[in-house]
C-alpha cells in the first residue's frame, strides 16, 4: 500500500456496496445477540416445565439408607486414597453436584445494604 485515495467512491465499487454490507453486518451481530437474549428469557420457563414433570415422576425420592452408608464409606476410602495419591485432583471427589450458594447477586445485595447504612450515618452527609 503506497498511496491512499480518499473518497466516497471507495464505499461503492462494482459488486460491493460497503454501506449495505455494513448494514447486513450490524444485522447479523444484532440477530446473534437478540436470539441469545430470547433464549435467556425462555430458558428458565422451559427448565421449570421440565422440573415439574420430573418431580411428579420421582416423588418418593428419599434415597435408600444402606446405599448411603456404603456411599459414605466409599467416599472416605476414596478420599483417603486420592489425597495420598492425587493430591491435586480433589474435584474428582464430587459425588454430588454443588449448590449455588455464592451468587454474585447475593454479594451485590449485601453490598447495597451496607453502603446505604454507611452513607446515612456518614459524618459528611449528616454535617
Amino acid at each position, binding site marked *: *500500500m503506497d498511496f*491512499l485515495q480518499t473518497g466516497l467512491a471507495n464505499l461503492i465499487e462494482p459488486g460491493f456496496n460497503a454501506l449495505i454490507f455494513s448494514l447486513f453486518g450490524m444485522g447479523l*451481530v444484532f440477530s*446473534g*445477540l437478540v436470539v441469545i*437474549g430470547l433464549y435467556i428469557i425462555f430458558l428458565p420457563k422451559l427448565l421449570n416445565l421440565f422440573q415439574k414433570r420430573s418431580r411428579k415422576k420421582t416423588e418418593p425420592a428419599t434415597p435408600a439408607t444402606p446405599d448411603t452408608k456404603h456411599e459414605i464409606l466409599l467416599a472416605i476410602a476414596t478420599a483417603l486414597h486420592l489425597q495420598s495419591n492425587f493430591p491435586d485432583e480433589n474435584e474428582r471427589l464430587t459425588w454430588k453436584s454443588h449448590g449455588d450458594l455464592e451468587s454474585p447477586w447475593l454479594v*451485590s*445485595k449485601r453490598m*447495597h445494604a451496607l453502603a446505604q447504612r454507611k452513607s446515612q450515618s456518614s459524618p459528611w452527609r449528616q454535617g
Partner: protein
Amino acid sequence: MEYNNFLHNSGLYHLEWTNMVMIMVGVLFIYLAVTKDYEPLLLVPIGFGMVVGNIPPIPGMPLSVYAEGSVFSYIYMGVMKGIYPPLIFLGIGAMTDFSTLLSNPKLTLLGAAAQIGVFLTFLGALFLGFAKTDAAAISIIGGADGPTAIFLSSMLAPDLLGPIAIAAYSYMALVPVIQPPVMYLLTTKAERRIRMKAPRQVSKREKIIFPIVAFLICALLAPGSMTLLGMLFFGNLLKESMVTERLANTARNGLIDTVTILLGFSVGASTQAQTFLTPQSLLIFGLGAAAFVIATMGGILFAKCMNLFLKDKINPLLGAAGVSAVPDSARVVHMVGLKSDPTNFLLMHAMAPNVAGVIGSAIAAGVLWSALGNF
C-alpha cells in the same frame, strides 16, 4: 579482520532516531502501567517488547520477530497464525461469570449496539482509501477486544498487525480517559442516577447450559466466529460445569498467563520503527480512537432509545460498557455512576453489556472474515 565487526555489529551503530522514539514509547507504556495501573498485564509486556524490538539487529542475524529462524519469530508465530487469541479467550471464558447477562437479557442489546463502532470505522477506513481487508482489520479495533483484533488482523491484514494490535491495546488501556467525556456529553445527571433493580437469581443449570447454546447460536449464524467463541464458551463451560474445576483453573491461570506473556512481548517486539512508523500507522491510530468514541456513543444512545420503550429504565451509562474492553469499561461505568450518586453500584450490571460486547465483536469479526477473507 572480524573484530572490526564488533563496532559494525554493535546496535549503537545502527540505531536511528525513530528507534529511539519507539523505545521511549515502550518505556512510556511501562510507566503508565506501573504508575496509573492501566492494563498492566498487557502494557508491561508490550512496552518491554517495543524496547527489545527496536534494538537494531545485526543484518542477517536471526534476532527480530521478522527474521526467519529467530527465537522471537517462533514466539511471534503464535500471533501470526492466530493461535494466541483463542487461547486467551479460553482463559477469559474460564474467568467470566455470565450470570449478570443471564439475569438481565435485555442488556445484551447494548453489546450489539456498540458494534456500530466497528462498521462505521470500516466505512471510514474505506473512505480513507484502505483496501477492504485492511479496512476490516482496522475497524475491529472498535470492538475493544485485543485478542479479537489480533486474530482478525492475522487473518485479513498481517502487514498491519503491529499497529492494529498496539492501537487496540493502547485504547483499551486508555478507556478510563476516553470514555468519561463521551459519557458526560450524552447523558444528563438524572439519567446517570437511574438505579437498576436487583436482578433475579440465576440457577447453576442455566449457567451450565448457556455456553453451549450461546455458542451454537453464534457459530451457526457466523461460523467465522467459531474459533474465538468456541474457545470462550469452552472455557466458560469448564468453569461452570463444576466437575472440571482443575482444568478451568489452569486455563485462567498458567495457560492464559503464559500466552499473555508471549503475545504481549512479541506484539511489542514487532513494532520496529522501520516498519511501524508509517503514515498508515498514524491513520490507524486515528481511526482506532474514532472507533472507540463511536462505539461508546452507539451503546449509550441505544440505551437511551431503549428507554423510550421500557418501563424499567436502563441507566444509559451501561451502554458504554457495551464496547467491552473487559473489565475496564465496566469499571469506568461504575466510577462515573458513583460520581453522580455515590450509592449507585453499576459494576455488576455493567458486566452484562461488557461480556455481550465481547460476543458481539467476535460475531462482527467472524462476519468480516468470512465475507472478505481470501479463500
